[in-house]
């Protein structure tokens, strides 16, 4: 109990004094997860929209695959990425193992299915609503995609934020492929795991607070977005 109390006081002190280690780890977390979210969005959003408005033979299979990938345990993703990137693995020559790039790759694999699936759902609903109008107005396929992406932009942002929220709190996969190396690949979640293990509760709690603050900020943004979505305030 005493540990926790002194830990919390120390945590507040670390945050208020802008402790360099704390800042460094937080920024690295953001760098990795923002990168992963951007890349996963660049893949997942168009994929989701494409699945929503095109009927092709493999469509159901792709959707089933996405759903299966969504349920993939992150630790297993980490393991697979590790095997691919390890020196003897097929992509070993790239020398990416134990770098932030490897962590970004793992997070992209984890959240792309989530982003694609949420955007697929949203665009499909919008397409169902717009279908007759867009056909009546004699739109080209490209014009339809543009209208759906633009009018569905809040839902798409929601999908990206959901991916971000999932990635920022993930620990198993990036621990494996990043190695949790000080000054190199240590991020919020892996640092918390390490510092807790060392009994260094103050730093662990401070990192935890920041992680919670980030998660809450994203959830708040999600909430506000879905609210404006319903009221169509934008």
């Amino acid at each position: 109990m005493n540990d926790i109390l002194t830990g919390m006081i120390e945590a507040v002190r670390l945050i208020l004094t802008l402790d360099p280690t704390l800042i460094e780890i937080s920024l690295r977390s953001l760098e990795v997860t923002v990168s992963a979210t951007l890349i996963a969005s660049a893949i997942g959003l168009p994929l989701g929209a494409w699945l929503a408005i095109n009927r092709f033979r493999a469509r159901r299979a792709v959707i089933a695959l996405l759903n299966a990938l969504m349920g993939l345990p992150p630790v297993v993703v980490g393991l697979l990425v590790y095997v691919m990137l390890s020196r003897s693995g097929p992509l070993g020559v790239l020398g990416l193992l134990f770098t932030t790039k490897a962590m970004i790759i793992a997070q992209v694999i984890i959240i792309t299915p989530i982003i694609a699936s949420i955007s697929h759902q949203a665009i499909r609903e919008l397409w169902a609503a717009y279908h007759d109008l867009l056909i009546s107005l004699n739109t080209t396929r490209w014009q339809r995609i543009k209208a759906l992406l633009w009018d569905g932009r809040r839902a798409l942002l929601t999908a990206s934020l959901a991916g971000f929220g999932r990635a920022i709190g993930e620990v198993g996969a990036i621990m494996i492929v990043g190695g949790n190396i000080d000054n190199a690949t240590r991020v919020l979640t892996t640092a918390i795991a390490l510092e807790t293990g060392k009994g260094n509760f103050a730093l662990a709690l401070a990192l935890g607070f920041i992680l919670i603050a980030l998660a809450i900020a994203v959830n708040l943004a999600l909430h506000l977005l879905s609210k404006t979505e319903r009221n169509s305030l934008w």
Partner: protein
Amino acid sequence: MVGPILPLRAESIRVARGGKTLLGPLSLEIAGEGVTIVLGPNGSGKTTLLRALHGLERLREGAVRWAVPEPETRSQQAFVFQAPILMRRSVVDSIAYPLLLDGLLRGEARARAADAAEAVGLGGRLALQATDLSGGEKQKLAIARALVRRPQILFLDEPCANLDGRATREIEAILATVREQGTRIVMSTHNVGQARRMADEAVFLFDGRLIDGGKASDFFDTPQTPEARAHLQGDLFP
């Protein structure tokens, strides 16, 4: 510029879904000027007929022919759906959308959209979100959006079905002006009073078949079928 796209001829068209015929086979010609009212009880095929003429339904038999090749008619036709389909955009941007599709710049499209909004009485609502309009205003928005490309023919599917008396009157007034300006109107309704007020020509559907109709003065005074007679008198069908 596209030349006159009328007359429109539906030649023995039939629409079916899952082996069940919803409409036809029936033939119909839309020519000249004015308003053709498609009348009939619920489920008689009014919506299906309008959609088929507009090219939204796959025909099992027959064909819909225009005076020019069909692709050239697309920008000259417009459709107002029974339940307005609203985009997640402001009123002015919703009305401007068809013009953007035609390649107009945003500024010019918005200016023309504002004029079209003015013409249907939405001049004071330009910046509002389309979904925030009242029921009558939503339908007016759909009409303005349909008219903004200045089509030669306007299809409307029971545009006043869910509106009160005042909104209905306003929309009838708007359509009267549209008619004056030379746009051919084909509109369905199950409201006999509205049909009498607006029609130059009537088409009566029953159970997917076109069984009566003609010049409005003839049809409303002397319908040829017992079904049309009963419908005009407001009788209920078993």
